[in-house]
Structures are given as structure tokens and as C-alpha cells.
């Protein structure tokens, strides 16, 4: 019971973090549309940009994990399929988090 309360709060905290960062990233994407590879690479060389992108993606993936788990809880009846689907979601989320973290660390290092 307590576990769900924490998840409920975390879903809202990540949502609040995502609001300003989403506007920032969508604006950056408008700029990216006219960028060459080197310019996008240079964008991620900046520690500030890499940090903001890191927080955006980690918050986004965790928010997605919580949201999808809620949907699974609501609509999947079978206990077994529910468990497998949740495991699939967690795996996908954690792999994406690791990929993003390693890529960003690699790009900010000189």
C-alpha cells in the first residue's frame, strides 16, 4: 500500500520535472532540424545540455514505466501475463536508461 503511494507521488514529481524540460527539448529539436551531424554532436559536448538531456530522459523513462505499469495493472487480468509485461517494461526502460547514460558520458568527455 505504501509502495503505491510513493509511486503515485513519483509519477507527479517526474511529470513536474518533465514540463519545462519538454518545452526546452522541443525547442532544441526545431534547431536540430537545420543542424548537420557536427552541430548536434557539439550540442551534446556541452555539459549543461548533456545534463538537461540526462534528467529529461531519466525522468521520462521512469514516468513512462510508472504509467505503463498502471495501465497493465488496470487492464491485464492474467497474473502471469501481467508479470511478464511488467518485466518487459522494466527491462526496456532500464536498457534505455543505461544506453542514454553511457552515450552522454562518452559525448561530454574530451
Amino acid at each position, binding site marked *: 500500500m505504501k509502495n503505491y503511494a510513493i509511486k503515485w507521488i513519483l509519477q507527479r514529481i517526474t*511529470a513536474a520535472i*518533465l514540463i519545462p524540460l519538454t518545452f526546452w527539448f*522541443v525547442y532544441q529539436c526545431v534547431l536540430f532540424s537545420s543542424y548537420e551531424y557536427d552541430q548536434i554532436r557539439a550540442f551534446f559536448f556541452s555539459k549543461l545540455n548533456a545534463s538537461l538531456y540526462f534528467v529529461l530522459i531519466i525522468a521520462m523513462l521512469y514516468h513512462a514505466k510508472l*504509467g505503463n505499469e498502471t495501465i497493465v495493472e488496470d487492464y491485464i487480468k492474467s497474473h502471469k501475463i501481467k508479470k511478464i509485461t511488467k518485466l518487459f517494461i522494466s527491462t526496456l526502460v532500464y536498457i534505455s536508461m543505461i*544506453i542514454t547514460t553511457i*552515450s552522454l558520458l562518452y559525448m561530454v568527455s574530451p
Partner: protein
Amino acid sequence: MSLNRPLSPHLSIHKKVLTAAFSIFHRFTGICLSLGAVLLSIWVILIALGPSYYSKFQVISSLSVFKVFLFFWTLTIFYHLYNGIRYLFWSYGKMMELSIVYRSGYVVIILSILSTVLIWISI
């Protein structure tokens, strides 16, 4: 336990109302955006791997179908974001009067469309 009853929230037994449509659409856009978040991590690793790998992404991104995909992605982002703000207010018990729920719903639709159009005319 194996009775063939609908699970909560009992979608199939309710009258279809606008507020329910907003809720279902919030979940649907959430699932779509989750896939988008996974795609973003693939995008960022292609940038890290270098120009020869990034060019593989550029082959796809130069397609006109990709522009259509991005357009709907933008619309999905803004819908989920603005509708999500409504959820944050409701979490505090604010703006829950039925008339305001309907009106803020219309505001969400209008803002989503306006924001998406603004993004695409500025590209």
C-alpha cells in the same frame, strides 16, 4: 476467480462521455510517448557512435513519412503535456468542478493544436 467479468476501470459498462475519452486518450498518448522515449535513446547512441552510424538515422529522417510521424509526435507530446497539467491540478483537488473539467479539456485541445502549428511553421 475465473469469472468473465470486466476489470476495473469498467470501460465497457459506462456511457461514453467526453471526460472518459480524454482519460483514455491520455493513456494512449502515454504509451506512444513511451515508445518515443526508447527511440530517443537509440537516437542519442547513434550520435555518440559517430557520423557513419548517424547517417543511418538520416536516411530515415529524410523520408517525407518521417515528417508526418514527427508531426503526430509533436501533437502527442503537447496533448499529453497539457492534459497532464490538468491531472496535476486534480491531484491537489483543484479545478474539479464538472464545468471546469470540460472547459479545461477544450483548452487542452486548442493549446495542443496551436503549439504544434507554431512548432511546424517555425521549422
